[in-house]
Structure formats: structure tokens, C-alpha cells
């Protein structure tokens, strides 16, 4: 019995740490950030991977903005404003269906395990 409830707690603690880590971790390095920008004239490549004039210019411009003190987040907002949502491989957070599904799934799994344990305790 003890093991089961311990595992249960451990999993919850672990997942909580995990989710919070993912939520709070930001992009710091520009080259990592370039990987999240879609090269609009290529097929599915990021500007980091592309040698097209579009990608080269965008990299230069972002570098310039970054050097002038803008944060990656501010640059991201500006980019989306100029080029539209398509530019970013990191979809906007207001796509609730997209971002919510994994969390809902995880929550359902939680409930599932919980109910199983409860059911098992009763019998």
C-alpha cells in the first residue's frame, strides 16, 4: 500500500517540477531562437538552417535588434506583428485547443490513476 501512494505522490511532484520547468524556461541564445523562426520562402525550414536572402536578412535584422537591447520576447512579438503568426514555429498561446490538449490529457491520466488507487483501496 505504502509504495503505491508514495509513487503517486512522487509522480505528482515530479510532473509539477517538470511542467513548471518547461513553463519558465525561456530562449536565451539567438541561435536557438533562429530555430523557431520559419523561413517563409522555404519548405518547412527555419531561418537558422536556410541560406536564402530572406533568411540571411532576417537573421541580420534580429541580431541588430538584439544588440540594441531588445529582448527575444519583444523581437518575437514584433516579428509576428510584421509577418503574421506563420513566421513562428512556436504557435501563439491563444491557440487553446493546441496547447491545452496535452495538459488535459495529462490531467485525465492523473484522474485515471487516482481513481484506480481509490478503487483498489476500497476492495
Amino acid at each position: 500500500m505504502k509504495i503505491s501512494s508514495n509513487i503517486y505522490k512522487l509522480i505528482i511532484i515530479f510532473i509539477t517540477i517538470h511542467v513548471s520547468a518547461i513553463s519558465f524556461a525561456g530562449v536565451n541564445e539567438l541561435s536557438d531562437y533562429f530555430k523557431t523562426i520559419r523561413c517563409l520562402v522555404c519548405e518547412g525550414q527555419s531561418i537558422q538552417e536556410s541560406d536564402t536572402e530572406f533568411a540571411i536578412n532576417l537573421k541580420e535584422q534580429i541580431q541588430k535588434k538584439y544588440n540594441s537591447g531588445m529582448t527575444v520576447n519583444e523581437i518575437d512579438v514584433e516579428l509576428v506583428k510584421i509577418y503574421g503568426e506563420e513566421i513562428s514555429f512556436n504557435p501563439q498561446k491563444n491557440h487553446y485547443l493546441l496547447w491545452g490538449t496535452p495538459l488535459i490529457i495529462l490531467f485525465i491520466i492523473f484522474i485515471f490513476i487516482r481513481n484506480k488507487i481509490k478503487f483498489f483501496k476500497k476492495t
Partner: protein
Amino acid sequence: MISLFGNGIIYVSLILTVLFYVKLLKKLIPSEVLTLRIIYFINLLPFILLIYAFSISDFTLLNVIENSYIDDPLFYKVTSAWGSHEGSILLWVFLINLFGIFFLNKNRIVEIHKNIIFISTLFLLYVMISSNPFTYIGANEEILGLGLNPILQHFLFVIHPPTLFLGYIGLVIPFVLSAHMLIKQDFSEKLFEEMLIWSKISWFFLTAGIVLGSYWAYSELGWGGWWFWDPVENISLIPWLLNTALIHSLKVSIKSNQLKLWSLNLGLYCFIASVFGTFLVRSNLIVSVHSFATDPLRGLFLIIIIGYLLAITVRLNIKSISNFNEDSFNLFSKESFLLLNNIFFICSALVVFIGTVYPLFSEMILETSVSVGAPYYNFAFNLLLAPLILFMAFAPQISWGKHERKDKQLPYILVLSLVISLLSFYFFENFYFALSIFITGPLFIKSILVLNTNVKKNLNFYSQWLAHLSIGIFIIAAVYTEQFDYEENLLFEKNSSNEIALQNNKIAIIKNVKDENFQNYQRISVDLLISDGQQNRQLSPSKNIYQPSGQVTNEVNTTNVLLSQYYATISTIESDQVGINLVYKPFINLLWLSSIMLIFSIFLSIVKRK
């Protein structure tokens, strides 16, 4: 001639199949098994004929003109046969029938084979109606062919698509077996065993295909990445995840007679997922590196096939749901952990699916175009995968039925893994790496401990042990490579020094620039030395200019430092300057090695059964 033959064979096959179905063939050939053999064999022929047409460069066929070039080496001429949409669908038909022939040696139930032939005929019809590779265009001496896309002229491309297709199509056998069991309401253990073997075979090819594809992208596209969350990669991952779930749930069905409807449903959906994947790629609905320009008819036809398969699935479920008792088993049993494993795998397949089709949904319903890429999957996929890996450490040692023994080691293992993880954070100062150490730690510790216990160690044990261990190694290697790789853009000017100092205190020296001509391309290559004073490592990245298209490809060159790799591509090459993109990929070879281990482990468990 070949056009006539090809079309003729397809018609003959269609006629024979129809005759077989209306039972008119019985008078002619009394043995049904023999008839099955004949139909399977005839269905193999069109693809063989297409390969022949490509190998002799028969430019009376439109498909050959579009996809091959007279001066291509024979090797690439042959592989052009599946470089196009038409060819790849014909390959699909070929492989279904190849599986049918092998399956016929193991299982002689005619109804099952009828279903296989039915599915193969659906695809053959698809070939006939919307993508016939045997379209005749007339003889013309001057045609030299347009050539195979140069990025595809790579040895790995020769084996990658057929291997992946073998994996996709291998799933047809679990599909027909599930359908058969549900139709006949015959749930014998023998059939489940058979399903397990075939799903393992398919898993073997799927894994190998995905790894080959990944390696191809890594070594050919020149972007330095090995997984791009590209729609095509995603849709090959979905059947893989479902198939992994299937293999685990089948064990429960066989050993403890539970989760039967669950397994059968998984068997059905695995194949549907692989057909769906083909549909998404070939219909060009989702733009990706791999898609061929196509007309909407093709997509429509594949939608009909998928709709039909889904309808069968739903129908069979309604029919048989009342015949199954609710599964019940102990909380602390292998069954319950395998169920959990299944839930996690199916959910991650669902997440990948949602991420892949969401741009489509958004474009049509919300009217905004969105790109879903690595940041989303890193969030969603890892969220679900991390707990799964933790379970993987402990689940294999739990017994069937009811687990009585208390696992006294458990808290110690978790604490130990946490300590190691904290230490690694102290030394490497990277959060993701420390996290991955914590997740995989118990798996490694348990793997070592298990070898010293008195668990029965047969081949089955080792294959499972190896599979789980290699997943652990894979995760560590993947996270390490991604977190600690670094990139340098070296620019060598003509009149300045030919040496540039690197971040890791080594020196990059440019040697010479070569210009060579080959059979169907011109190569400009640069020799680069990486020197640490005593040892020199040479890299020669190049740019290839292909005939007849004039397309330029970047050829990557790598050199290994134990398990790590230097990865070089030419970024610019002009008369007065040479730019080289140099990436250091630590432990990338460990990643490929663990993939090979994974493939080998399933090979062990397949061999064991024979």
C-alpha cells in the same frame, strides 16, 4: 511495350481478383491457396516491371522521363522507381503482396488473405485511376529525362523509403488479423501470438525506417539537425507510437487474457494511421520537404480508403463490444502498468497528430496560418514521455496478476538518481540535461541491478532489457547533443590568414579548393583541417551542381572524435572568400548507436520465436 505490359498486368490482376471474389475461379483452380499465391505473385509484377523500365531508361514512359536522367548511374536509375508519387504507391502495392506471400506460409485462413488482397486491390485501383506510372508518351530520341531530385541521390534514400514502407505495410497483417478475429468472434491465443510477431516485424522496419530517414536528413540536408518535427516525420512517428503500444498490450492479451478488445482496436488503428500518413504526405495538404505536387483526386481517393477502413473499425466494434467483459485487474500488477504504458503512448500519438493537423484546422476554421514546430512538441511530447520513462524503470520487474513483493530499493534508486542529477547540474550547468539524467537514472540503475537478481534470463528478457536500456541511452544522447552542440561560422578571406582559432582552443586551417567533374554532377570541395597541435582531422565539405537541373546541393562532411562529431558544410564560396559552417555535435554517434541497439533488440525477440 512496357506501358502495355504494365497496364495489362494490372488489368489481369483486377479481373482475377474479381473472379476470385465471386468464386468463379474455383472451377479453374481448385486450391484456394494456390489462387491466392497466383494473385499475390501477379500483383508483384507491375513494380518489378517499373524497376526494369527505369533501369533501361525507357523514355516512352512519362514517369521515367520525369524522374530519371540518361546519365544517372544505374543505381540511382533503379531507385528513381520509388522517387515519384506513382512509383511509391506501386511500391506500396508490391509490399502488401510480398507480406501476403510470407504470411501465407504461416497462416492459411483464406478469409484473412481475401482481406489483404482486397486492401491491395484498393491501392491498385488507386494506381490505375489517379497515378498510373505506365502512362505512354511515345518514343522520342531526343529526350534525356528530367532527372531524380539531387537531394534524393543518396545511398540512404535507396533503402529509407522501402524500409519505412515495409514498416507501414507490415501493419496490414495485424489489421486483417484483428478484423478477422472480430468478424469471427474467434479470440484464440494462437492468433494473438501471430499478431504479436507481425507487429514486431513491422516495428522492426518502422524503427529502422525512421532512424534511416533521420540519418539521411542529418547527413544530406546539411542543417545539422536529426529531427525536425516535419509533418512527414510526425506521421511516421504516429504509427510507431501506436505500434509500440500494440506490442505491449498484446502481451497482456496473451498472458492474462485481458485488454483484448483494446489490442484489437490498436491493431486496426495502427494500419489506419499509416494509411493516413501516406494520405497527408501525398495529397500535399500539409506542405513539407517530402511532398510531391499532386492533384486533389489523389487525396480524395485516399480519403475514401481511410473512411472505408474507419467505417470497418467502428462497425466491428459495435458488433463485438457486448461480447467482452470489462477488464479487471489488480492495481499493482504488470497488467495495470502496461495499460498505463499504453495510455501514455496513445496520448503522445494523439498529441503528435494534433500538432500535425492543427495548422490545417487553423487555416480552415480560424483562418489564420500557424506553424507548429519544435517548441510545441518539446513541450507536449516531453510532458507525456517523461513519466513514461520513469515507469519504464520499474514496470518490467512487476509480476503478472498481483504484485506482492515490496520494492524496497525504489526510494533509494530515486534518491540516488536525484543526487546524480543534481551533481550533473552542478558540473554541466544545464537544466535539461540534469532533468534527463533524473528521468533516465532509475532506468540505468535498475538495469544494472536486475542483472544480479534471480530473474529468469532468457532471450526474451535480454531483448526487453536491451530495448529499454537503449531508449534510456537515446534520451541522454539526444538531450546532450541538443544542449551542448555549438556552431561556428568560419570565413576565410583570400588575402588574410588561412587559420582561424576555434572556441575549444583548436585551430581550423583551410587547405585547398578543388573542382572536379563527375558523371552527372560537378563538385567543388574545400579541404579543412582541424588541428590541436598534435592531431589533425580533415573535413572536406562540398557543393555539388547536378545535371540536367543545375540544382546545387550542399554535401556535408563529418569527422568523428570518439562518439562526437564535427559537421561541416560550405556556406559561401566565391573567388575571394570561402565560408564554412562548422558544428560540433557531441555524442551524436551515441544516438545512432542506441538506435541500432533498439533495432537489434527487437530483432532478438523476433528471432527467438522462430
